[in-house]
């Protein structure tokens, strides 16, 4: 190709180079960046933790609390967590400027308070999840706060009583 032809093409096409970071990035509508968990909507149910392929989301219990930890350094930006979240708490953002000089800067934690079983005192669910369950189903908060084991016990007792009364 002759120089004249190259110059002609260059004049026609003009400059193609993106000037990022002095120009907005080239984000397509399909692009998925990091996720954001809305603290006021998350239940702490762990559905996102179960689905997350690389285990970027984890639930870490410590005493009376349990933290939903998002480690963006392992996220593969699949958006599956946003799809399964029953509370619609996860938003897939377009954020990609995630670089950090320390790996700890890549972790964000959302700390939930745990409820205790009203019979044995063992940690049961998170407060937010308890509230959501009571709101969505016809059970009382008092019943929902009991751990599965004592709920079974209570149920067995109730059945035994009924059978006893039927005789």
């Amino acid at each position, binding site marked *: 190709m002759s120089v004249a032809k190259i110059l002609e093409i260059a004049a026609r096409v003009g400059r193609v180079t993106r000037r990022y*970071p002095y120009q907005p990035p080239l984000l397509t509508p399909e692009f998925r960046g990091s996720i954001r968990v809305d603290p006021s909507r*998350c239940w702490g149910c762990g559905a996102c933790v179960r689905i997350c392929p690389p285990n*970027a989301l984890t639930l870490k219990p410590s005493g009376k609390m349990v933290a939903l930890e998002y480690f963006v350094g392992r996220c*593969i930006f699949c958006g599956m967590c946003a799809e399964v979240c029953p509370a619609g708490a996860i938003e897939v953002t377009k954020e990609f400027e995630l670089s*950090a*000089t320390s790996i700890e800067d890549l972790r964000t*934690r959302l*700390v939930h308070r745990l409820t205790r079983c009203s019979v044995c005192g063992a940690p049961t669910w998170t407060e937010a999840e308890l509230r959501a369950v009571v709101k969505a189903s016809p059970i009382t908060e008092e019943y929902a706060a009991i751990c599965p084991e004592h709920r079974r016990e209570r149920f067995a007792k109730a059945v035994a009583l009924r059978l006893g009364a039927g005789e």
Partner: protein
Amino acid sequence: MSRVNVARALRAIRRSIWVFHLNSGSCNACDIEVLDALTPYFDVERFGAKLVASPRHADVILFTGPVTRESLPKVVRAVRAMPRPRLILALGSCAVGGGIWWDTYSTIGGFKKLEEILRESGIEVDRVVYVPGCPVRPEAIIYGLLLLLGAVEQKARGSEVAVPEG
């Protein structure tokens, strides 16, 4: 172990950063994005970055992949061959935290683990910038490189928030 003035070295290479691309067993998508960043379209050469063929010539290693067991000895040799200060850009979620291969038997799970192995072998790494993405966008690579050079502010901040009361 010797000390290196990283800030001074960074000032010296500011407009002429020679990069070496080191693939430690990535799926190749991050490597394609490295190529993208080098093409005239994203043109990382605007900042003076130039791809070199040997780690002996490199200022920065563009590190991709979760470090497979097979690649580990070669990766260690390549990093050892690099002159001080050793600046590393860990590109992609594989290199940062093991990514989708975080618990497979055949990888060691990213740069953090590699750093421990390097330290045990007496190889010091002077500065690392972790660049998440799967794959990393070319702009994310540019941003990471500028962060390494200190030309942009770091946006990522680890945080811990409590859910609001009932």
